[in-house]
């Protein structure tokens, strides 16, 4: 289909800007815009038609099953979308005086309290805008904590398992630390012997996802805790997989000192095609003085306020108090569950194990254990026996009306298919997905071309990613004589 710039016709417009009714003022000539930007000239109806058509070329949780591992693609309750539009939330300026922001501050404070209880930790900063920013913020806290103890020169190393999300090592570098990699053992846990050999007085922290990106709870977590705390290092919990353990096991009780929570995963902020997210961090009391400012506090008189006066704070990591609309949705979501968050996690784990049980005969299972809220299969045998890769399986799933799982991650599993059903799906949907996966495994044996050529029923067929990267075209070329073939 055309891009909106190709629909532009001079003389059309959607907006009417009220005339201000005051004398016109002008920008000094040397700073005035010479050429107008070539924004589209379209009617309001064309705007709606264009974006509605684009939406029909996209697939969301609302469209169908979306078992994208590590992303927790669950139902996003619509009441939350209504709540964020309340003028008292939506039309509120972030620099409004505290006495005009009591409802917002109370909401943030209550959300902090809930997150402290769910994580088993003592203090929360809501400011980070996404999980990876929570990671970076957490590592800045680690640095500040050791600097305060005079150990910042000594403790330069952060330990990360080979199953970690790519954000972990990227955050380590951005925070100015050095990486130490630790391996995974035969059961899918962190290799404790490898770990023991690598943790010493130069270690600042461990970053761990638990359950891991393999969907496995680390059975040696208590031993890992002893190793790190014994060496005087801190423990960082990547909360990407918190959906597995709410109300069942808390990162604080596992020994972690810093946790980030992905509000867009566990607590249902809609993913928005890539964002927004929310990445609050929860910490043990000894790290509280270093949290970003301002912090949301309840004062002795029961009012709520912002505390800017934290001399040991790392500073600000984002504007204002954080992505407030995300807080509204996640707070509402958590209030809808209360202590029943445990049932949410139980259902997520049950669904994942059920799908695993139905699929493990047809696909390789690298670690044959019960899983938590997600699991990783491998298409290694399909590839060896029939030439069908994880990508082929993923593309073929589209023809069956499902969004594919995460593929080729974690990196330690070849031809990985990482499947996270979430708790909100019916058994009928899970069965339909399993039937499709089993059918695809049979198709691979009978007629692999049907996989190789998939998808057959999407708006586009397989796209040439190499061409896109080799000669990047990253904006519409107005001058180009003729665009490639129109849809």
């Amino acid at each position, binding site marked *: 289909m055309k891009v909106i710039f190709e629909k532009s016709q001079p003389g059309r417009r*959607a*907006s009417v*800007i009220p005339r201000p009714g005051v004398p*016109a003022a002008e920008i000094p000539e040397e*700073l005035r*815009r010479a050429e*107008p930007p070539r*924004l589209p000239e379209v009617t309001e109806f064309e*705007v*709606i038609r264009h974006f509605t058509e684009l*939406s*029909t070329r996209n*697939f*969301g949780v609302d469209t169908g099953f979306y078992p994208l591992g590590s992303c927790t693609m669950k139902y996003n*309750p619509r009441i939350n979308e209504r709540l964020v539009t309340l003028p*008292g939330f939506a*039309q509120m300026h*972030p*620099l409004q005086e505290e006495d*005009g*922001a*009591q409802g917002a501050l109370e909401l943030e404070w209550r959300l902090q309290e809930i997150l402290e*209880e769910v994580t088993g930790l003592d203090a929360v900063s809501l400011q980070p805008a*996404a999980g*990876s920013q929570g990671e970076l913020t957490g590592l800045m806290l680690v640095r500040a904590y050791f600097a305060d103890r005079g150990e910042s020169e000594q403790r330069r190393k952060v330990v990360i398992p080979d199953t970690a999300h*790519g*954000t972990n090592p*990227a955050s380590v570098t*951005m925070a*100015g630390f050095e990486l130490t990699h630790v391996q995974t053992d035969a059961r899918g846990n962190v290799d404790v012997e490898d770990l023991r050999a690598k943790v010493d007085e130069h270690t600042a922290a461990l970053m761990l996802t638990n359950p891991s990106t393999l969907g496995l709870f680390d059975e040696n977590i208590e031993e890992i805790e002893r190793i790190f705390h014994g060496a005087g290092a801190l423990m960082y919990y990547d909360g990407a997989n918190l959906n597995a353990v709410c109300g069942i*096991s*808390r990162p604080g*009780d596992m*020994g972690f000192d810093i946790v980030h929570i992905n509000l867009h995963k566990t607590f249902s902020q809609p993913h*928005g*095609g890539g964002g927004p*997210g929310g990445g609050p961090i929860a910490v043990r009391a000894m790290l509280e003085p270093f949290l970003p400012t301002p912090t949301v506090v309840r004062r002795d008189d029961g009012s709520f306020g912002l505390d800017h006066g934290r001399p040991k704070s790392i*500073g*600000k*990591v*984002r504007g204002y108090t954080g992505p*407030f*609309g995300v807080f509204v949705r996640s707070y509402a979501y958590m209030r809808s*569950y209360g*202590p029943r968050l445990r*049932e949410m996690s139980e259902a997520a784990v049950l669904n994942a*194990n059920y799908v695993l049980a139905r699929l493990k005969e047809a696909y390789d299972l690298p670690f044959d254990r*019960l899983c*938590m809220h997600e699991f990783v299969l491998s298409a290694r045998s399909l590839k060896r026996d029939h030439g069908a890769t994880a990508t082929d399986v993923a593309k073929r799933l589209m023809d069956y009306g499902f969004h*594919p799982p995460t593929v080729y*991650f974690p990196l330690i599993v070849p031809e990985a298919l990482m499947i996270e059903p979430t*708790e*909100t799906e019916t058994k009928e949907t899970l069965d339909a997905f399993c039937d499709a996966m089993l059918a695809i495994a049979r198709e691979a044996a009978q007629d692999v071309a049907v996989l190789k050529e998939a998808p057959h029923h999407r708006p586009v067929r397989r796209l040439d990613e190499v*061409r*896109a*990267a080799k000669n990047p075209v*990253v*904006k519409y070329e107005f001058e180009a004589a003729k665009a*490639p*073939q129109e849809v």
Partner: protein
Amino acid sequence: MSHPFLALTDSDKEEMLRTIGVSSMDELFGDLPAGVRLGRELDLEPPLSEQELSAHMAGLASRNVDTTRELSFLGAGIYDHYVPAVVDTVLQRGEFLTAYTPYQPEMSQGVLQSIFEYQTAICELTGMDVSNASGYDGTTVTADACYIAKHATGRTKVVVTEATNPQVRQVVKTYAPGFGLDVVEVPHRGGVTDPEAIAAASHDAAAVIFQQPNFFGCLEPAPDLAAAANEAEALSIAHVDPLSLGVLEAPGRYGCAIALGEGQAAGNLMAYGGPHYGFLAARQEFIRRMPGRIVGETVDVEGKRGYVLTLQTREQHIRREKATSNITTNQTLLALGGLVYLSWLGPHGLREVGEACLSLAEHAKRRLQERGLELVFERPTFKEFAIRVRRNAREVVREARARGVHPGYALGRDYAGMDDVLLVAVTEKRTAEEIDRLADVLAEVAR
């Protein structure tokens, strides 16, 4: 008891446990050592039904004073511009709202094409060659740009003008130590930055960051600032207001390396600070150093045009510790709001909104001066200006609010020696009558 967000019936559960080959839900959690189990119910308030939740949330919202209840001239980085209904309508499409990062392009052409169009719109606004798919907000994209500059130049210092939004400077300072960068601030002179001062500070700098219009609302001599930075072979980075770019020159046209900013003014509600989108655009030479997602055009196996995430070897999921940033989740939905808004505006609407802001702000300056208030800086401005209120500005804010008008931001919150200064923002939503009311109230309380 069932829960509206949970789907399994008791008989489903039994059958599923049987298929798995376990006898109870507890058995599924057998890998958890006893010592790390909670062993009690979470200490949270009981669940609320949708109806109860609505009432509770309405109660919280009612204890906020928003711009429908208070005439507001508060800006300082976040602005009360009009957001048209088409934005709400598009963003509530479930196919956009409930999708994630378009890792599987055949499932995600809607998001991918809209990001491609967003990138085009941002490049048109800023005069740049390449835009990413969005960053968190106007503060973090500035920190991201410092990371680009550090790697592009190998230098260890960034220069930022003191007239740049304090929130932005604070975030840059938080990130800088991890990047191995020192931050040097250049003071303003009479509300704007002296290009000579930039020239003196930019020796050996990786980047020079300035804001146009600056935090005081004043128009910087931006082309001269960019030239001074370029002369020192530092990256010239302009932090710009997207809604000014219908009337103010595009940073790409006066030699900047990078243009970025807070997107909120263009298509997002203020929402107590977010979520919004930060935009980041650069000259072609920085394309492989850009942080975050970038969408590129390509063709499918039948030669049909389509879009994919591209240049992914920059990114954390492939490059890991050597990535150009750690960003993964970004602000796609808010950036889509920006694109829909800019499509609604078109080039004429963008210019008219800018002219309306400019003219109304000039009108407000005159009205306030007629009431005996003094401008702090006698400089050209866009939609915001600093005015002296002759007493503590925070007290003036309090007393004006008691009269139903939020008169602006007390600059003493961030700048020493400016305790008696208010920063007044006037968007196209304000009317001549509302400006008269501001003048009346300030004449009364700024004695």
